[in-house]
């Protein structure tokens, strides 16, 4: 067996260039796919965190009808109960309740359908990061009685500046229309252009004055908990006491995040499969060539009494060497690269605008769930073994008489 290994090993390195290229491409292939996976996961995590921290929180509570009909009347049914449940839950680190309704924003020249978010300024700031995203102005100072925060892109399109006057129209609970002039107090940029273009923020009290409501109507309660992994668990606990309202985790509230999580796993497997197939063919091609070149040698070995099994082992070892040298090196370099960019981040600031449009940060911190390394290594081993079967089979089919006759 030692000698077989010696033969295989030396045969592998008989043409160092060929072997170098094959092993090199295995390493580069695996490395680059891990790089891609780390990058994709980093982007996704970055987007997810951004979405959670600025918009979604970990858990959202609405009236059951709100999701299908975000009407002013479909407010949270039992706010007292919800607040009580939140206060009593040890995992809840903060929550903010919002008045949310659709309305129209008008300037002297134009008008836009928008979503009005009436926020509790203090609680909101303690729960989400949106109020920190003000590019100009702030959420909200004392200078305006009816202040509004608009998105950066909307402000640009409507030529709004700090202090610009806009009129907001909305439907009151009694189904009559009302409108009121607000002044732009902040221009914000959450990192998600589509969201920014549609959502405007006003203090909750201001909106209550506009609709002349004494009761605190809220449509959305956004909750932050201490551990994102516990979202489902906390939801279940909350549902024990919250009966008349709907509780959603961030994943349920944002279909895109759920889709991204799913498709990420899918993409990883496609990527791994592509690389593995390439690796398989690389090994196959090289070892089959090597076997065909050595038909006479193999014929002689069979004649002098080398069994098929040993020939099989000799060629299998040769294939395994490619996979088992290239594979771990690829995984290792990939892992090291991912660890490095996981710690120091991968700077994409030159693509900043495009990134922000998708709700992404310009510095991507690579991340790959550990199990992917195991899955990948496992797949590489499988592919290498499969890749070794065919050349080994060809080698055992060598007919000694024919091989010798061609000498």
């Amino acid at each position, binding site marked *: 067996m030692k*000698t077989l290994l*010696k*033969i295989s090993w*030396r*045969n592998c390195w*008989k043409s160092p260039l060929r072997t170098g290229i094959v092993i090199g491409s295995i390493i580069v292939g695996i490395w680059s796919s891990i790089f891609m996976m780390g990058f994709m996961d980093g982007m996704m995590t970055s987007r997810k965190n951004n979405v959670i921290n600025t918009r979604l929180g970990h858990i959202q509570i609405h009236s059951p009808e709100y999701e299908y009909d975000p009407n002013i009347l479909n407010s949270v049914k039992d706010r007292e109960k919800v607040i009580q449940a939140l206060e009593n839950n040890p995992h809840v680190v903060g929550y903010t309740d919002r008045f949310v309704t659709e309305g129209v924003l008008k300037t002297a020249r134009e008008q836009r359908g928008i979503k009005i978010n009436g926020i509790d300024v203090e609680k909101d700031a303690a729960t989400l990061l949106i109020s920190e995203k003000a590019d100009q102005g702030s959420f909200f100072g004392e200078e305006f009685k009816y202040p509004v925060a608009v998105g950066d892109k909307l402000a640009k399109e409507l030529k709004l500046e700090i202090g610009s006057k806009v009129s907001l129209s909305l439907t009151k609970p009694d189904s009559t229309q009302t409108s009121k002039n607000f002044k732009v107090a902040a221009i914000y940029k959450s990192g998600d252009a589509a969201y920014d273009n549609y959502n405007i923020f006003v203090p909750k009290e201001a909106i209550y004055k506009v609709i002349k409501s004494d009761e605190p109507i809220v449509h959305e309660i956004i909750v932050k908990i201490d551990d994102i992994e516990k979202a489902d668990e906390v939801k279940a606990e909350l549902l024990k006491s919250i009966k008349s309202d709907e509780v959603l985790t961030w994943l349920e509230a944002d279909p895109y995040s759920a889709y991204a999580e799913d498709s990420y796993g899918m993409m990883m497997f496609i990527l791994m499969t592509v690389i593995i197939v390439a690796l398989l063919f690389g090994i196959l091609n090289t070892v089959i060539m090597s076997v065909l070149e050595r038909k*006479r*040698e193999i014929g*002689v*070995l*069979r*004649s*002098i*009494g*080398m*069994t*098929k099994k*040993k020939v099989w082992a000799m060629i299998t070892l040769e294939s395994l060497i490619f996979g088992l040298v290239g594979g771990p090196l690829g995984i290792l370099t990939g892992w090291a690269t991912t660890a490095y960019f996981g710690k120091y981040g991968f700077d994409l600031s030159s693509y900043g605008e495009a990134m922000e449009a998708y709700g992404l940060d310009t510095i991507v911190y690579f991340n790959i769930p550990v199990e992917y390394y195991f899955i990948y290594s496992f797949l590489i081993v499988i592919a290498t073994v499969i890749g070794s079967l065919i050349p080994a089979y060809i080698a055992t089919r060598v007919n*000694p*008489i024919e091989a*010798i*006759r061609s*000498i």
Partner: protein
Amino acid sequence: MENVIETKNLNKVFGIGDLAIKALDDVNFHIQKGEFTALVGPSGSGKTTLLNMIGGLDEPTSGNVILDGQDISQLKKSEMTKFRQDHIGFVFQAYNLIPVLSAYENAEFIMLLQNVPAKERKERVYKLLEEVGLKGKEKNKPGEMSGGQQQRVAVVRALAAQPAYILADEPTANLDSKSTSDLLDLMYRLNQEENMTFIFATHDQRVMDRAKRIVYLEDGKIIKDEVH
């Protein structure tokens, strides 16, 4: 004297119908221990075919082959492989050696397959390599040796495994006359000193000159069998 090789009414036909070629035609043939025999005959006369039969590499169309007392038609393919390993030594015209192994490693190869202990392998290989004049070449790869030296390593490999006999199909075909006579001297000496049985197929007059017995083949038949 015991027969190490015996064929009975041996026939070998290649192909079928009109295209059939009778490569061996009712060959009855014996080789005894310690013989030094040359198989000669024109090209296509069946020398290689006969060697393949008595080397257990090919199966006869009809007839029997008894090698070292064993009727090989009784053996399964895998048993036949093992039988060759233990009983038959081979020296081919070329490509005998594993290019990536040294002379020493090539020489001990069959013994490795036979699981001969390391110490014994080493003793036999060193002794034989010295005997064939390859002392100091143990670490050389085949590519670093002349054709004659490579053939001598092949003889050492065959011999070290202690076979019942050694078959050599045109072992000198690729050698110059000096290497040819060196190789023949060597085999002749091994035949004399160790009583090793050698059977060659050859076209080479120099080989025939050294043979103790010459078997002439034509169209698959033995037409003459003479002892010198």
